[in-house]
C-alpha cells in the first residue's frame, strides 16, 4: 500500500457515509415492501385497538340457565340476584340432564339448580342446598363466576337467616365488623383496555424488534447480496448496525403513533411518567432485542425460516414476560427463565412509566436487565454473523 494513512477526520467521515448510505438503503427497501408495510401499520394501530377494546378479563354477561324446582317467592328472589353485567339469565329449563348437555355444548356457562321446598325449608330454618355448575374451561372467568355466585348465594342465605330472626338486613351495617377500606391505584376504574392496549403495544414492539432486522438480514442472504457486503471493506458491525438503526427508527415511529393515536386518543390511557424516559427505554430495548433477530437470521436460510424461528422464540418470550402472570405465581424454574426474557424487564419498566408514573429510581433494575440480557443477545448475533458461512 503506497498511499498515506488517511486522517482521523477522513476516517470518521467515511465511516459516517457508509452508515448513511446503508441506513437509507434499509429504509428504501422497507418502504417498497408493501406487504410488510401494511403489516406494520396494522400492528401499531388496528391490532392494538382490537386488543384494547375486545379482550376483557372481567366476567361479563355470563349466560346462565336455571332449574327452578320450587317456583316460590324465595327462589325467584335468589334467581333475580344473578343480574347483568356479570350474569345473564338465559332461560329456565326442566331437567338437570339438559343443563349438563348445554354446558357440554358450551351454550351456557352456568347452571343454577334450586331444589323443591326451597322456600319452605328456609322459612322453617332447615338446611337447604343450591347447586351451581360452572364451566371453567376458561379458568379466569370460571373462577370469577364461581366466586360471584357464592357471594350472591351466601348473602341471600345470611339475609334469609336474619329475617327469620326478625332482624332487618340493616343490622349488618351496624353490627361490629372490620371495614374494608381499599384504594385502587393506577387504574381507578379498573379498565382492562388500559392494561391490554399497553401490553399489546409492548408485544408488538418486541415482535418487530426481532422480526424486522431478522427479515432484512435474511433477505440479503437469500438474494446473495450479503456476499457482496462481505467482500467490501465493511466490518460485520457496519453491516448489521444500519439495519438495526433503520428498524429502530421505524418501530419508534410506530410506537409514537400507537401511543398518541390509539392509547391516549381512543382509550384515554393517562400517561403518568416521563415520555422521554419511555422512549429512551424503548430505544434501548429495540436495539438489544434486534440482537435476537440477527441471531435468528444467522441460523435461518430464508425468510420463511425467519418467520418460523421468530414464532419459536417469541411465544415463550410472551408467556415469560410476566404480563399475564406475575413471576411469584410461576414455578421456580420458570421464574428463572423469566429472567432471560428481555420482554419481562421491558413490560415491568413500561407499565411502571406509563401507568404508575415511575421514574428511573424505581425501574433502574429493569433497565439493567434489558441491558444485560439484550446486550448478550446482540453480541451473540454479532459473533455468529461472521461464522455462519463456513
Amino acid at each position, binding site marked *: *500500500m503506497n498511499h498515506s494513512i488517511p486522517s482521523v477526520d477522513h476516517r470518521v467521515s467515511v465511516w459516517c457515509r457508509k452508515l448513511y*448510505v*446503508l441506513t437509507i438503503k434499509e429504509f428504501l427497501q422497507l418502504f417498497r415492501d408493501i406487504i410488510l408495510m401494511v403489516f406494520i401499520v396494522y400492528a401499531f394501530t388496528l391490532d392494538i385497538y382490537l386488543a384494547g377494546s375486545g379482550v376483557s378479563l372481567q366476567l361479563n354477561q355470563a349466560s346462565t340457565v336455571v332449574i327452578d324446582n320450587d317456583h316460590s317467592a324465595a327462589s325467584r328472589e335468589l334467581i333475580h340476584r344473578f343480574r347483568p353485567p356479570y350474569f345473564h339469565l338465559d332461560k329456565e329449563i326442566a331437567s338437570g340432564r339438559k343443563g349438563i348437555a348445554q354446558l357440554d355444548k358450551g351454550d351456557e356457562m352456568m347452571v343454577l339448580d334450586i331444589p323443591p321446598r326451597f322456600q319452605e325449608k328456609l322459612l322453617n330454618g332447615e338446611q337447604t342446598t343450591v347447586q351451581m355448575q360452572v364451566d371453567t374451561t376458561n379458568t379466569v372467568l370460571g373462577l370469577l363466576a364461581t366466586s360471584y355466585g357464592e357471594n350472591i348465594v351466601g348473602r341471600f342465605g345470611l339475609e334469609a337467616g336474619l329475617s327469620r330472626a326478625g332482624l332487618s338486613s340493616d343490622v349488618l351495617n351496624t353490627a361490629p365488623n372490620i371495614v374494608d377500606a381499599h384504594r385502587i391505584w393506577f387504574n381507578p376504574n379498573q379498565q382492562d383496555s388500559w392494561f391490554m392496549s399497553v401490553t399489546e403495544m409492548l408485544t408488538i414492539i418486541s415482535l418487530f424488534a426481532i422480526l424486522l432486522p431478522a427479515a432484512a438480514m435474511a433477505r440479503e442472504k437469500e438474494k*446473495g*447480496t450479503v456476499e*457482496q457486503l462481505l467482500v*467490501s*471493506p465493511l466490518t460485520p458491525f457496519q453491516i448489521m448496525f444500519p439495519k438495526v438503526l433503520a428498524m429502530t427508527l421505524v418501530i419508534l415511529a410506530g410506537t409514537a403513533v400507537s401511543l398518541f393515536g390509539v392509547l391516549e386518543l381512543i382509550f384515554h390511557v393517562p400517561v403518568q411518567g416521563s415520555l422521554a424516559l419511555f422512549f429512551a427505554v424503548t430505544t434501548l430495548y429495540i436495539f438489544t432485542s434486534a440482537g435476537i433477530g440477527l441471531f435468528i437470521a444467522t441460523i435461518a436460510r430464508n425468510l420463511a425460516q425467519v418467520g418460523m424461528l421468530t414464532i419459536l422464540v417469541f411465544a415463550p418470550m410472551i408467556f415469560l414476560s410476566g404480563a399475564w402472570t406475575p413471576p411469584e405465581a410461576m414455578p421456580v424454574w420458570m421464574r428463572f427463565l423469566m429472567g432471560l426474557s428481555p420482554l419481562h424487564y421491558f413490560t415491568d419498566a413500561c407499565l411502571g412509566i406509563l401507568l404508575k408514573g415511575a421514574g428511573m429510581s424505581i425501574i433502574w433494575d429493569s433497565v439493567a436487565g434489558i441491558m444485560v440480557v439484550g446486550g448478550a443477545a446482540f453480541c451473540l448475533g454479532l459473533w455468529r454473523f461472521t461464522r455462519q*458461512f*463456513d
Partner: protein
Amino acid sequence: MGCAAVVKESGRSPKAAVSVARISGFVKKYRQNVAVRNLDLEIHAGEIYGLIGPDGAGKSSLIKAMAGVLSFDQGTVNLFGTNIDSEKSAEIVKPRIGFMPQGLGLNLYPNLSVEENINFFASLRLVPADELARRKQKLLSVTRLDRFKDRPMKNLSGGMKQKLGLVCTLIHEPELIILDEPTTGVDPVSRRDFWSILTDLLREQGITALISTAYMDEATRFHRMSLMFEGEVMAKGEPDDILNLVPGTVVSLHADPQARAVSRLKEQFLQVESLGSTLRVFVENKLPNAAVQAVVAALDGIGIKDIQPAAPELEDVFVALLHQRHLTDDAPDCPQDSLSGPAALQPVTLKPESLNPDALESDIAIKAEALTKNFGDFCAVDKISFCVRQGEIFGLLGANGAGKTTAIKILNGILTPTSGYGQVAGVDMRCAGKDIKNRIGYMSQLFSLYQDLTVVENIRLYSGIYGLSRRETRERIAWVIHMAGLSGYEKKLAGRLPMGVGQRLALGCALVHRPRILFLDEPTSGVDPVGRRRFWDILFKLSREDGVTIMLTTHYMSESEHCDRLALMYAGRIVADASPLEMKEALKNDAGHLLSVLTGQPLVALKQLEKSGFDGVALFSKRIHLLSKDPGAAEKTIRSVLGRGRIDVVDIAERPLSMEDVFVYRVLELEKGEKGLEA
C-alpha cells in the same frame, strides 16, 4: 404402442411424417408480459425436436402448456389429434406423454432411493408389476444406475439425477416425451452420456421427443428445431438449414496490437469477438477466401498471424439473425476512453500483452496453493493450486458442483479454507484488511443487486460502501451508466431489468471503486448470446486497457475460449490448467484430430465405426464425430469400413476441437487413471 413410428434411416421424407404435435397461433401472457407470441410448431413422429433459446425465450411456457400443466391465452395445442383446451382433454393425452420439468431432479423425491423413485412413478402411471420389473431392469442397466439402486436420490450427482429423471419419465412407455432443459448445469461428460442414452432409447422404442436447451452447441443433436428469442421463433428447420440462413465465414486470427485491431474490425463487421489472444470475425455472405481477404483489407497496417477461415456456428447465425431484426439493445458501445476514468486511484502498472510465462512473483495477482475446503464429509475443493498474473483473464471451467464457486469464495475471503493457502495481491485472504478489500471487486452468481432499489440507487449504495465522496459518486454513477449502456434505465428497479442489462449493472457496481482484481462468479449464466458478447467486450477492455486482473467461473464450454488461461475443474480438482489454445493443441497430440463423418445411414455407420476401434465416436444428429491422430489414414479406414457395409460416405471433414472435447477427454482420462490405481 399403436402409432409408434420407427425412425427411417434415410432421413424423414415429408410425406411419411406423422404429426404427433401441432401447435398454432400459441400465445402465453403473464399479466402484461407476453412470454410466447404467436408460435407455430409441428413435431413429427420419431424425431427429436429442439427448442433452443436463452432464458426468457418462452421455451418453458410452451413446454408446460404442452404437458398440460399451464393454461395459455390463444391458439391451439394439438397432441395425438386431441386439442388440449381443458384439464379434461389434457388428462386424455397425459398417459401418452412423459414430462420432465426443468431443474436437476426437481421432480424426484430426494429422500427416496433410486428404485423407490421409479416404483413411485410407475405406480402413479399404473404400470403392472411384471412390466415394471422388466422395464426397470432394462432402463437401469442402460443408464448404468443399477449399481446405485438403493442410494437416496439426493446423494446422486447432477448427471445421475437427470438420468434417473429420464428413467422415471420413460417408465410408462410414453409416445412423446417432453424434457425441459435436461442438460442445464450437467457436466459435459454426463451431458454426452445423457444424450447418447437418450438417442439410443428413443430410437429403439420409436419415441418422439421435444427437448429444450439454452446451449447453442447442442443444436446438432436435434433432427429439427426452433430457434427462439423473447417469445418468438427466429428460425426453424433442420440444423443445417438454419445455418444456411445467414451464409458466411468465420475468420479467426491473431493480431498485434489486438485492441486496435478490434476497433478497426468493429467498424466493418457486426460480430467481432476476442477469445483470449485470438480474434474471431463473422464475415457474412462471403466464401472463405473472400472473407479472409476482406479481413486482411480491414486490418491494413496491423500485424496478422495464423489467419484461418471456418464454417460459422449456430451462435454466429443466431446473433446475425438478431442483428437483422434489430433485436439487440441499441445502447451505446463501450466508451473508447479508459474504463477507469481519469482519476484512477492506483497507477496502472501493466503493459498490455505482457503475459510472458516467466512472470516475476510481483506480477502475480492471485495465487492458490493446495487450497482445500471441506463441508462436513464433502470435499468441495480438493488441493487446487494455480496462479493468475496481473491483467490476465483467468477462467475456472466446470459443471455445477465442481467447486468453482467455493474456490472463488475462498479467494475473496467469504469462506475460510480448511487447509492450503490463498493469496490475493500478495496478501493472505484469511487476514485481509480493508485495504485489500478496496482493491478487489466481486460479482456473485445471483448478480448481487438490490432488486428493490433502482439502478442509480444501487450504484450510489456501492459507492457509499466503498467510501467514495459525493463528487466521486456522481462521477462514477455517470461512468457506470455510460459503460454499461444503462441510460434510460436509471429510475427502473433492478429487479425489473432484462437479464443482460442487470448483469452489466452488477458489473458496474463491482467496478465502482476501480478495483484492480475482479472476481466474477458465473457472470453470464442465463444471458442471451448478444448480451454475453457485449459483456465480454467490456471485460476484454478492462483487462487489456486498464490491466485489471479478472478471475471468473463459467459452465459454458464455448464461453471459456474468451479467457487467456483456463483451469478445468471436475469434482473439486483441477484437471488441466493452460490457455485454451494450448489445451486444444495438447489434446490434438494426445488424442488426435476431430473428424466429422456424414453418411446416408448414420445409425448403422455409428455401430460399425465403434466396432472398428475409433476413439470418441459420437452421433450428432446425422453426423458422426470421432478422434484420430492421423486424419489421412483414418479417412481411408473409414471409407473402407463403411464401404464394406455398403454405406455411402457423403463427406468427411476435420473440425476444430472445442473446449468440450478437451474437458470430456481429460475427465475420462482422469477417471481411467484412478480406476487403474484402484485395480
